[in-house]
C-alpha cells in the first residue's frame, strides 16, 4: 500500500479491498458470456439501430460501469474512514502553508505518563509539525499560559530552524493555560504572511477540563468566538496530548490559623490535601518544613476525589520572616505537591494607646482599662497567668501624638480622641496601607463632624462608617443595650462561639454612637448591639485594617471593661487589626508582589530574591507621598524575599503558590469536546499516543469520520442513479447530471443526435 494513500484513511488496511472495484467490469464481462440466442428475421432493422446507436450504447454502458465501480469505491472509502485534513492536504500539498503552532504550557502539562511529561510530548509533536515545513512556508509559535510571553514567534518565520530552537527552549509554566487570552493573541497572527492563502493552526493541549470548561456564560461565548475566528481563515487542528486517568493528589491549601505568629509559641498551620484522581491514595507522606527544616510529618489516606486537612503546630523561634512549606510525596504531577507560607514572626505586638481624655483620677483615662486588657500579666497578673503577654501597650496622650512615628507600632488605639488634623489623618492612612492596624473608640469627646470630614470623607477615608449622634444617656443610664453576635460570622468574634461564659452577649452598654454610610465606605459590621445598631465595624485600607468601636473602652458608656468579654475581645481586635500585613503576602503564581517601603529610602533599589536564588533590583515607586515596590508577575513557585534597605533594613517574604485548578487532570474526551466547547466549530480533533513516534505523519493522527457521512449520502444517491440508469438511461441521466440530460434533450428536439 502506498504510504500517502494509507495516511488518508483511519483504517487503511481495508483499502486492500479496493480490488473489488473491478467487480462490475468482471460481472459485466461474465454477463456478456451468459446470453440467450435466437434467430431473428427483422435483423436489418436491428443492425441499423445498432449501427446508429453503437456510440451512445458504449457511452451508456461505460457510464453505468463507472457508476457501479464508484459505488464499490465509495463503500470501501466510507468503511476505511477518510481523514479530512489529510485529504485536503493531498490536494493542496503543493501550496505554501502558514502554520501557527500553539503549545499548551500550563502546569497540568507537567503531568508525567511513562518517562515523559505531556509538555515534552507536545513539544516533540510541535517539532514534527515544524519540520514538515518546506521552502515558502511560514511559522508562528504561541505558548498558552497566563504568564508572558505568550507569542514566542511573532513575525512568521520562513525557516524552521529558529522555531525549532524556540520550541526546545520553551519552558513549562507553573500557571494556568489562560486559554482565552492565548487564543485571542493568536488570532491576529493569521493576518501575518498575507501572501500565503493556506493557513493551518495547530493547538497541542492536554484538554484539561479546568482549562477548556468555559461554562455557559460570557467566557463560553468568547471562547466560541475566538475559535470561530481561528477557523474562519484557517484549518484548525487540535492535537490531544493528554492522557486519561492520571492519578494526582496535591497540597491545595496552607494557612496560618493565628492572625499573628509569635516567636517561641506554637502557631496553628492547617494544610489541605486533595486527591484529584478517581482512585484512592494510601499512605502518602505529608511533611511540614520550617525554613527548609523538617519539623513534622503525617501519613494521609485519601479516597477518590476526597480532601483532608492536617493541623500542625510548629514552634518558630526568633522574630522575623520565616517560611513554612508543606510537601507531599511525588505523583504524576509533582508541581502541586509543595505549597509555601510566608510568616512574619514577632516577639510581641507593639500597641499604641492614645488617650483623648486627660484626668488625674485612677482608671479615669480612656485608655486605662484598655492598657490593662492588652497586657494583663504586666500589671500583676490580673488574670492570674504567668505567661508573658504578646501585646506590649504604650499609652500616650493626644497631645503627644504629633511627635510619634506610627511605623514603630503594629497597632494604634485612639480612645475618645476629640478630632484629627489632616496631617494626622494622612499619617494614619499611610500606616494602614503599610499593614498597620488602627482602632477608633468612642467617647464623650468625639466630635462626629470632625471625624467624618477628616476620616470618613464620604466613604473614601479610613473610617468604616459615618459617625452620627450619641444614642443613650451614659449618666442617667435609663436604657441599656447588649452585644448581639448574630451567627458569629465575623472572625473577630469567632472565638466566642460556643463559649457563653465569656459573657459577650450579656455585656451591657448605656450609650453608643450611631453610624451610617457603611456600604459607601466598603466597611463591614463585625458585631452589633441587640437593637441592630453596629457596635464594632471594620474596613480594609491597603494592607491594614481600620476598626471602629462605637462605644467607649472605659466604664463611661458601658460596663464592658468590667465584663469577662472585655479582655479577650480587646486582644482579638488588636490581633485582627495587625493580621492584614501577613495575609497580603500569600500569592498565587502570576500575581504581582507589592510592598510598602519607608519614604526615607528614596529611590534606593530593593533587592528581590527569587525562589531559584536569582536576585534583581527593584526601584520603589512614589505616589501620593507613599513609596512602594511592585514586582511581577511572579512566575516561580516558592518564597520571594524583598530586602528593604536602611533605614528600615528589614525583609519581607512572599509565598507564591500553585493554582490548584491545574491539579485536576481530568480531561475532555474527543466526544465530549465535540459536544461541548467545540460544538459547531469546524476543527479537526487529533490524538496521539505518548509512545515515541518516528514521524509526524504517524504520530499526528487526524480523527476520522469527517467525510464518512457525506460519502454514505453520495453512495445512497448513486444507488438510486444506478437503478434509474439501468431502468431508463435518460431518467438516470436526469438524476445524475440534469444539465447534460437537458443538453441531450435539446439536441434531440433540435434534430441532433438522439439521446
Amino acid at each position, binding site marked *: 500500500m502506498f504510504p500517502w494513500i494509507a495516511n488518508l484513511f483511519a483504517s487503511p488496511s481495508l483499502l486492500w479491498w479496493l480490488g473489488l472495484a473491478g467487480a462490475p467490469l468482471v460481472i459485466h464481462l461474465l454477463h456478456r458470456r451468459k446470453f440467450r440466442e*435466437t*434467430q431473428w*428475421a427483422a*435483423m436489418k432493422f436491428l443492425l441499423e*439501430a*445498432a449501427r*446508429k446507436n453503437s456510440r451512445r450504447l458504449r457511452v451508456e454502458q461505460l457510464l453505468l460501469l463507472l457508476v457501479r465501480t464508484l459505488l464499490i469505491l465509495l463503500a470501501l472509502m466510507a468503511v476505511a474512514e477518510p481523514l479530512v485534513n489529510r485529504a485536503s492536504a493531498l490536494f493542496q500539498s503543493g501550496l505554501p502553508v502558514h502554520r501557527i503552532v500553539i503549545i499548551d504550557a500550563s502546569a497540568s502539562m507537567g503531568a508525567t505518563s511513562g518517562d515523559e511529561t505531556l509538555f515534552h510530548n507536545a513539544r516533540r509533536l510541535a517539532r514534527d509539525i515544524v519540520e514538515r515545513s518546506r521552502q515558502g512556508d511560514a511559522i508562528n509559535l504561541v505558548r498558552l499560559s497566563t504568564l508572558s510571553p505568550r507569542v514566542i514567534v511573532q513575525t512568521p518565520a520562513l525557516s524552521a530552524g529558529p522555531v525549532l530552537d524556540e520550541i526546545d527552549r520553551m519552558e513549562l509554566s507553573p500557571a494556568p493555560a489562560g486559554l482565552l487570552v492565548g487564543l485571542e493573541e493568536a488570532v491576529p497572527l493569521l493576518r501575518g504572511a498575507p501572501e500565503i492563502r493556506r493557513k493551518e493552526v495547530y493547538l497541542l493541549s492536554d484538554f484539561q477540563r479546568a482549562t477548556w470548561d468555559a461554562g455557559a456564560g460570557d467566557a463560553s461565548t468568547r471562547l466560541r468566538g475566538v475559535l470561530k475566528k481561528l477557523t474562519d481563515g484557517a484549518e484548525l487542528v487540535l492535537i490531544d496530548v493528554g492522557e486519561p486517568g492520571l492519578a494526582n493528589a496535591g497540597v491545595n491549601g496552607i494557612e496560618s490559623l493565628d492572625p499573628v505568629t509569635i516567636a517561641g509559641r506554637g502557631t496553628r498551620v492547617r494544610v489541605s490535601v486533595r486527591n484529584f484522581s478517581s482512585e484512592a491514595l494510601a499512605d502518602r507522606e505529608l511533611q511540614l518544613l520550617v525554613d527548609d527544616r523538617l519539623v513534622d510529618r503525617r501519613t494521609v489516606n485519601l479516597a477518590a476525589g476526597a480532601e483532608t486537612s492536617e493541623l500542625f503546630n510548629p514552634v518558630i523561634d526568633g522574630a522575623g520572616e520565616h517560611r513554612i512549606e508543606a510537601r507531599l510525596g511525588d505523583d504524576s504531577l509533582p508541581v502541586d505537591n509543595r505549597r509555601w507560607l510566608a510568616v512574619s514572626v514577632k516577639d510581641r505586638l507593639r500597641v499604641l494607646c492614645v488617650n483623648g481624655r486627660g484626668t488625674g483620677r485612677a482608671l479615669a483615662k480612656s485608655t486605662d482599662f484598655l492598657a490593662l486588657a492588652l497586657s494583663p500579666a504586666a500589671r500583676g497578673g490580673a488574670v492570674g497567668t504567668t505567661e508573658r503577654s504578646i501585646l506590649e501597650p504604650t499609652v500616650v496622650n493626644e497631645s503627644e501624638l504629633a511627635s510619634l512615628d506610627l511605623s514603630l507600632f503594629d497597632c494604634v488605639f485612639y480612645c475618645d480622641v476629640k478630632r484629627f488634623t489632616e496631617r494626622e489623618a494622612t499619617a494614619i492612612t499611610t500606616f494602614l496601607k503599610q499593614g498597620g492596624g488602627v482602632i477608633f473608640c468612642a467617647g464623650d469627646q468625639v466630635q462626629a463632624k470632625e471625624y467624618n470630614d477628616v476620616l470618613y470623607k464620604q466613604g473614601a477615608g479610613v473610617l468604616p462608617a459615618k459617625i452620627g449622634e450619641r444614642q443613650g444617656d451614659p449618666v442617667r443610664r435609663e436604657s441599656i443595650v447588649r452585644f448581639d453576635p448574630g451567627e458569629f460570622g465575623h472572625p473577630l468574634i469567632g472565638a466566642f462561639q460556643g463559649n457563653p461564659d465569656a459573657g459577650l452577649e450579656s455585656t451591657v452598654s448605656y450609650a453608643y454612637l450611631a453610624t451610617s454610610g457603611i456600604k459607601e465606605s466598603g466597611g463591614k459590621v463585625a458585631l452589633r448591639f441587640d437593637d441592630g445598631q453596629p457596635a464594632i465595624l471594620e474596613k480594609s485600607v491597603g494592607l491594614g485594617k481600620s476598626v471602629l468601636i462605637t462605644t467607649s473602652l472605659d466604664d463611661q458608656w458601658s460596663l464592658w471593661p468590667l465584663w469577662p468579654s472585655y479582655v479577650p475581645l480587646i486582644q482579638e481586635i488588636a490581633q485582627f487589626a495587625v493580621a492584614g500585613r501577613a495575609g497580603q503576602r500569600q500569592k498565587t503564581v502570576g500575581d504581582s508582589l507589592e510592598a510598602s517601603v519607608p519614604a526615607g529610602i528614596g529611590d534606593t533599589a530593593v533587592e528581590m530574591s527569587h525562589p531559584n536564588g536569582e536576585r534583581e533590583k527593584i526601584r520603589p515607586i512614589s505616589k501620593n507621598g507613599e513609596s512602594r515596590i511592585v514586582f511581577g508577575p511572579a512566575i516561580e513557585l516558592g518564597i520571594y524575599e524583598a530586602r528593604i534597605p536602611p533605614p528600615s533594613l528589614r525583609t519581607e517574604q512572599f509565598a507564591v503558590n500553585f493554582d490548584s485548578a491545574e491539579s485536576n487532570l481530568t480531561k475532555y474526551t474527543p466526544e465530549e469536546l465535540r459536544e461541548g466547547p467545540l460544538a459547531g466549530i469546524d476543527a479537526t480533533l487529533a490524538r496521539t499516543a505518548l509512545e515515541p513516534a518516528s514521524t509526524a505523519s504517524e504520530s499526528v493522527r487526524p480523527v476520522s469520520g469527517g467525510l464518512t457521512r457525506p460519502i454514505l449520502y453520495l453512495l445512497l444517491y448513486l444507488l438510486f442513479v444506478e437503478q434509474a440508469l439501468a431502468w431508463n438511461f435518460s431518467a438516470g441521466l436526469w438524476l445524475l447530471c440534469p444539465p447534460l440530460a437537458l443538453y441531450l434533450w435539446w439536441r434531440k428536439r433540435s434534430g441532433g443526435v438522439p439521446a
Partner: protein
Amino acid sequence: MEAHQKYLDPATLAKLNGLDLKARLIVEGYVSGLHKSPFRGFSIEFAEHREYVAGDDLRYVDWKVFGKSDRIYLKQYEEETNFACWFLVDTSESMTYRSDQAAVSKLEYARYVAAALSYIVLQQQDAVGLATFDRGVRSFVRAATQPAHLKQLCHVMESDGTGSDTALGPILHELAERIKQRGVVVLLSDLFDDVEALMMGLKHLRHRRHEVIVLQIIDPAEQDFPFLDPTLFRGLEGLPELMTEPRALKAAYQREFEQFLSDVRGGCRDLHMDHMVLRTDQPLDLALRTFLSARARRKQGAR
C-alpha cells in the same frame, strides 16, 4: 371465446391438420359471427327484385316471394361476371420466424389467410390463383374456379418448403408479367426487403391494372421487441449475427421498425393499395375483414 370464433385463433388452427379444412373453418367461423348470409357480399350478392317478363331465366325466380304473394319476381345480383384472385405467398426464410409470443410462424399464418380467402373466393365461383416465392417463384398455380381447386392450392402451399433470402421487387415484376388476367392480387409477406424495390414491383402490378391488397405479416416480437437479457441475434436470409443488450437497443430498434412500416404504409397509400399489418398473435378475422371490406369498397367505387 365463442365456439364459432375458435377457428379464428391461430393457436387453435395450428393444432389442426389440412389447410383446406382450416380454410373452411376460418371462413365459417368468421361468417357465423356476422349472423348474415354466409356468402353475401360477393359477386352473387343480391341487389333487388324485378317482375318477371317473358324470356327471363327461371333459375332466378324468387319462389318464396311467389309463394307468399302469387307474383313472380326475379332476384337480381350486382355483379355476375367472374374475377380472378391471385395470392402471392412469400416463403422466404424470414417468414419462418416464430417467437415465443406467437403460436404459428409468419408463413403458417400467411398460408391460413391465403387458404381462407381462397375458400371464400371459390365459394362465389370466382377464380383463384397462387404463387409462392422466395428468391424466385417457387410455385405458380393458374387461376381456376372449381371448388376442388382449393385442395390443389392447399397442397401446393403445404408442400412448398421454405426458401432462403428474398428479393421482392424482381419477383413482383416477374409475377406482374406472368399474371395476364386482370384481377385481385393479394400479397402475403413480411416485406422485409428494400422498400423502394418493393414499391416498384407493386407499382408494376398496379400498372397491369390489378387490384392489389398487401397483407403484411409480422411476428409480435418483431414489433414489441420483448427481449431483456443479453442476446445473440442470428440473422435469417444471410444477414450477420449481433450480440447486444436488447434493453438498451429496444427504443432505437422500434423506431427503425416503425419507420419501415410507415414507409410501406405510405407507399401503398400512394399506389392506392390496401395495406394491413397482420400480427401472428391476432385472430384471422382481421385479415378476412380487411379483404372483404376492401372488395366492397372497390365495388362501391366502381358503381
